[in-house]
């Protein structure tokens, strides 16, 4: 590349630019690199996931997908069973009869479990679904606006 130096237009400016001295690197550059090297030398499980080896990163993504699918599948399976439970029948059962059948503790456990399945779990599911939808809408809209702005700018 240096062989055809004469081809440069405006040789005076070219000479001036080539004569420019180097700019001093900041003092923090070397300590920064050395500390990054030290961090990367740590065992993979002590480092952030973004710096793990590729197979482990893919494994983590796969594990998350399996866990998410399991939760989703479990929720879908449980919902019809929850609908089949008759709440009025459960709460109309007299206390004495309940005590006679399985004891107060057992009843409380059953009520708590029932409330969890009928009220808390669906509520959490709805909150999670609404949150995801809200995030996706915001993210999608934000990206679309940014892309169109960049396109207009080009």
């Amino acid at each position, binding site marked *: *590349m*240096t062989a055809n*130096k004469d081809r*440069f*237009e*405006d040789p005076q*400016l*070219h000479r*001036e*630019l*080539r*004569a*420019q*001295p*180097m*700019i*001093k*690197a*900041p003092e*923090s*550059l*070397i300590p*920064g*690199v*050395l500390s*990054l*090297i030290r961090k*990367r030398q740590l065992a993979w499980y002590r480092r952030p996931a973004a710096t793990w080896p590729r197979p482990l990163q893919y494994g983590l993504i796969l594990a998350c997908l399996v866990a998410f699918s399991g939760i989703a599948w479990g929720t879908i399976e449980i919902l019809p069973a929850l609908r089949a439970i008759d709440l009025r029948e459960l709460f109309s059962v007299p206390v004495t009869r309940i005590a006679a059948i399985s004891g107060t503790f057992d009843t409380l456990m059953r009520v708590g479990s029932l409330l969890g399945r009928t009220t808390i779990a669906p509520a959490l599911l709805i909150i999670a679904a609404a949150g995801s939808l809200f995030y996706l809408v915001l993210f999608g809209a934000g990206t679309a606006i*940014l892309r169109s*702005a*960049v396109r207009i*700018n080009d």
Partner: protein
Amino acid sequence: MTDSAEFEAFMRSYQDMVFTSAIRLLGNHAEAQDIAQEVFLKAYARFAQLKQSSTVGGWLKTVTRNLCLNHLTRYRKRWRVFSDMQRENSEQDSPAYEEQLAAPDHRDSDERTANQREILERALASLPSDQRVALVLYHFEEMPYQDIADQMKHSLSKVKTDIARGRDTLRKRLESRKEELEMDQ
């Protein structure tokens, strides 16, 4: 000398060269530092081969240039809308990068030459991104127009226009700053 001490000495020898290439291409102090860090991390990964190589300077320059151009096309474009607005606002005062720019490490006995060099560096830094990158690749890296067009993924005519405009702007800014300095003296 341990490997770590050897690598530190290696960085000391090349840090100014890598940082200068990065800051001239990116025009941003913080981004240039990030790229320089990345370059040295890549160098560390293959330090065993590099320390015996005679073309280590060229390797470092090529890696720096490629990382900077990748950075400019991948990340900078997304935020160009906002950064251009910022640049327009701050142009009347003093551009942020020019303030951040470290003074060249000159040991010139002639103070006037040193001043002129600093003026040139600041004028270069204040050019729009496309003009500055094309101009740096052409004059500092001595790359042919076609290679610059390929690297920047721009047409040949755009690269030529950018370089010519950059050169004109640079010349005008240099002349006006020199006149200002002469009037002050």
